[in-house]
């Protein structure tokens, strides 16, 4: 049997059970617990124990057994779920999780704080502490030498009704040795119509020889129901056996038994030797068939399996293939267009529609609800809050919001960091909160939603908010900015993401674990996402992570500069227009008035140092991330294009304005613009220009993106 498969299934199931256990415990701390939840709690440990035993994970069995005892007491109402008990259970949960993780990694099961937890459990259990650990599978004693036995079997009248066939017991007995004589005693059988076909009237007398002991023989019949009586004796104890067997029945039965025994030479005490049948070697063949597994068994599928588990790698290669298909489809379409054959063009359009559907379906297969990640936070909030002596309420919304699986995995760490940060630095001490008239209990919100082609995740708190002055002072002190830097509020907030910045005067062992918020920003940027901060002193802070839906394929917008083609992620494109020709500025205005708002312009040709002269007519693509807008000046617009992202090699990792590449239908390579970097550059450029116009010195705080050390345009 495929133990590896079973083990995987066990680990996965246990993880789910542990998750459920944790969420129930955390829920229960807030509200009262229902009987159903108590049952589920109990079953979580119970099921893990049961399955762990199958895999010989004795350490886990030993531990979960105690935890199960505790939960049993809780379920039966002998214990109340208070903070202490809940704490012990959560620690038990952690311990089992660690044990299972070690099993999954193929390591030795760690002792961890097992003894402490067990001691705590023992302290909570009312004496005498629980029942004994589950009986070890009875170790088979050394097979005894062949011996002769007498059996007197009176199956109860209900045995047939209970679904048992006395004959099957006898057949099973025959696998242990040799039945040398068997006779039925049918005196109880009624001769008239009072005969009940579902009732057992038979009594069996038997002589048996085999390498067994009395316990083994008794166990053959242990499943037989109430009302049955089995007398089993070694042949040597003939007299007492007959005595006992006789007592068991009425006169008719006794007579009929005596007849049998007489036939066998057991009654009356005629010679009790030499009668036994000639002895044969009685190693009865093992009757258990050993058919190869998986012949043609139809699998009974339980109704719960609405999901099919697919290896992530298979999905990835499918998505890769769909990516290739998208490109091939685009190529076919291009070819059809250049041939000018309209039926061909039509069919490629139909195909493109289908490919688009396949693409979105394939991608949706990788989408998982963010709730999977969110679900760990009640625990984080509880633990961190307790450690800091703060009472925190966590509210989660939008847990069903879906995003790419690969992204969900990478989000866990930054989100944890932000949540810890919110509790540690955001929310004030209880005394402080009381002093300013806030409710003592702090609030942390986790919120996820879709917004125009991206996923937004907010981590908000109702704490003290960010103090720009304090941040500025700290940044100056740390040498992150110079004293004459001119920064917007957003820029100041963003400073807390700078490496080496920590607003907390004291380093707690939670947020100050050596990694700062800069790691958060790096992680989010690696996912092509952005972080925004909203904050109001005294009211709280909101971190807003904006992430693309998927990492593999995007809807792109193709633009042309000179002979190069670039892709702008469509979700960032707001609108397009022709660049108005103005008499001043040598035809190159630095900003546009767009419906009353100033739109800074970025000339892609100059920015990327591409050769050639722009044509007479240039176009502006208005791109936006968050609340920042920039007009990107390009030569020509080519329109929408499904873009399969091919990541750039590590050689190009330092490129700021390029996030990837793709292959166009005609086989040419197009670079994907990193809109975030472009917008940052443009706004900084604008700020420094503005500063230049106001003051004689340029702003020292603005960073220059380095984009020009490679001829990336071609």
């Amino acid at each position: 049997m495929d133990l590896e498969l079973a083990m995987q299934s066990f680990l996965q199931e246990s993880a789910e059970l542990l998750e459920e256990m944790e969420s129930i415990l955390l829920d229960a701390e807030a509200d009262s617990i229902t009987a159903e939840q108590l049952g589920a709690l109990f079953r979580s440990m119970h099921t893990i124990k049961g399955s762990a035993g199958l895999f010989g994970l004795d350490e886990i069995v030993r531990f979960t057994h105690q935890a199960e005892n505790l939960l049993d007491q809780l379920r039966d109402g002998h214990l109340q779920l208070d903070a202490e008990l809940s704490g012990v259970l959560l620690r038990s949960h952690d311990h089992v999780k660690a044990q299972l993780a070690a099993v999954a990694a193929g390591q030795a099961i760690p002792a961890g704080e097992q003894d402490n937890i067990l001691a705590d459990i023992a302290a909570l259990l009312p004496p005498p502490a629980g029942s004994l650990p589950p009986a070890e599978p009875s170790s088979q004693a050394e097979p005894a030498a062949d011996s002769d036995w007498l059996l007197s079997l009176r199956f109860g009248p209900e045995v047939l009704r209970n679904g048992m066939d006395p004959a099957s017991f006898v057949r099973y007995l025959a696998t242990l040795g040799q039945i040398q004589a068997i006779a039925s005693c049918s005196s109880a059988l009624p001769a008239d119509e009072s005969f009940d076909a579902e009732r057992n009237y038979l009594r069996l007398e038997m002589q048996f020889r085999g390498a067994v002991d009395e316990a083994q023989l008794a166990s053959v019949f242990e499943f037989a129901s109430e009302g049955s009586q089995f007398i089993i004796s070694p042949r040597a104890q003939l007299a007492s056996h007959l005595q006992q067997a006789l007592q068991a029945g009425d006169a008719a039965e006794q007579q009929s038994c005596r007849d049998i025994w007489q036939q066998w030479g057991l009654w009356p005490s005629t010679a009790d030797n030499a009668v036994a049948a000639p002895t044969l070697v009685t190693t009865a063949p093992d009757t258990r068939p050993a058919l190869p597994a998986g012949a043609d068994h139809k699998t009974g599928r339980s109704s719960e399996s609405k999901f099919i588990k697919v290896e992530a790698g298979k999905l990835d290669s499918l998505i890769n293939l769909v990516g290739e298909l998208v490109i091939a489809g685009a190529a076919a379409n291009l070819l059809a267009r250049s041939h000018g054959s309209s039926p061909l063009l039509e069919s490629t359009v139909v195909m493109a529609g289908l490919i688009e559907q396949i693409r979105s379906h394939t991608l949706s297969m990788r989408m998982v609800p963010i709730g999977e990640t969110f679900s760990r936070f009640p625990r984080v909030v509880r633990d961190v809050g307790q450690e800091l002596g703060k009472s925190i309420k966590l509210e989660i919304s939008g847990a069903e919001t879906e995003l790419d699986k690969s992204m969900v995995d990478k989000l866990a760490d930054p989100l944890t960091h932000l949540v810890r940060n919110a509790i540690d630095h955001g929310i004030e001490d209880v005394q402080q909160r009381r002093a300013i008239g806030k409710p003592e209990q702090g609030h942390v919100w986790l919120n996820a939603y879709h917004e125009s082609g991206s996923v937004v995740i907010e981590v908000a708190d109702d704490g003290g908010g960010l103090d720009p002055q304090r941040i500025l002072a700290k940044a100056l002190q740390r040498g992150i900015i110079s004293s004459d830097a001119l920064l917007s509020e957003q820029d100041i907030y963003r400073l807390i993401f700078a490496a080496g910045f920590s607003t907390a005067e004291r380093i707690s062992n939670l947020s100050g674990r050596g990694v700062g918020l800069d790691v958060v920003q790096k992680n989010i940027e690696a996912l092509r996402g952005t972080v925004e901060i909203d904050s109001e002193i005294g009211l709280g802070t909101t971190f807003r992570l904006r992430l693309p839906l998927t990492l593999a394929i995007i809807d792109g917008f193709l633009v042309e500069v000179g002979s190069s083609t670039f892709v702008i992620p469509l979700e960032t494109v707001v609108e397009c227009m022709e660049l108005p020709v103005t008499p001043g500025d040598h035809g190159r205005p630095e900003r546009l008035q767009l419906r009353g708002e100033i739109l800074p312009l970025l000339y892609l040709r100059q920015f990327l140092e591409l050769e050639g002269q722009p044509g007479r007519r240039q176009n502006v693509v208005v791109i936006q991330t968050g609340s920042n807008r920039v007009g990107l000046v390009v030569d020509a617009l080519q329109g929408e294009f499904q873009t399969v992202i091919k990541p750039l090699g590590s050689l190009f990792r330092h490129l700021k304005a390029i996030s990837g590449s793709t292959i166009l239908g005609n086989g040419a390579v197009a670079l994907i613009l990193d809109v975030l970097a472009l917008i940052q550059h443009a706004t900084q450029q604008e700020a420094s220009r503005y500063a230049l116009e106001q003051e004689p010195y340029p702003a020292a705080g603005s960073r220059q993106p380095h984009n020009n050390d490679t001829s990336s345009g071609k």
Partner: protein
Amino acid sequence: MAKTILVVDDSTSLRLVVKMTLEGAGYHVIEAADGQQALALLDGRKIHLVLSDLNMPVMNGLSLLAQIKQHPDYRFTPVIMLTTETAEHLRQQGRECGSCAWVVKPFEPPQLLDAIARLILP
């Protein structure tokens, strides 16, 4: 014709192991995750034996047992309780409902097959 065994347990991994054990011994296995699902499978098909857990959501093993023993078509079907419970009062309850056998988890595959072999033949 392989005999059909209905395995009822809320643990998928346990069901998997039991299924592999039983199929390896030549039985045909159908599965249910709780008592309710198990009852839904008692739809006239031939089931030679039911192997059920005790602690399950929705409908536990003892209720399932009682239902089977009252079922017009399946009341003669032998039932084995496969459970970690060893408490005598539960066994007593089981006997009152008409249980046949009680196998304590964790089981060794030969042990389980033995127990089944006592009730039906493969």
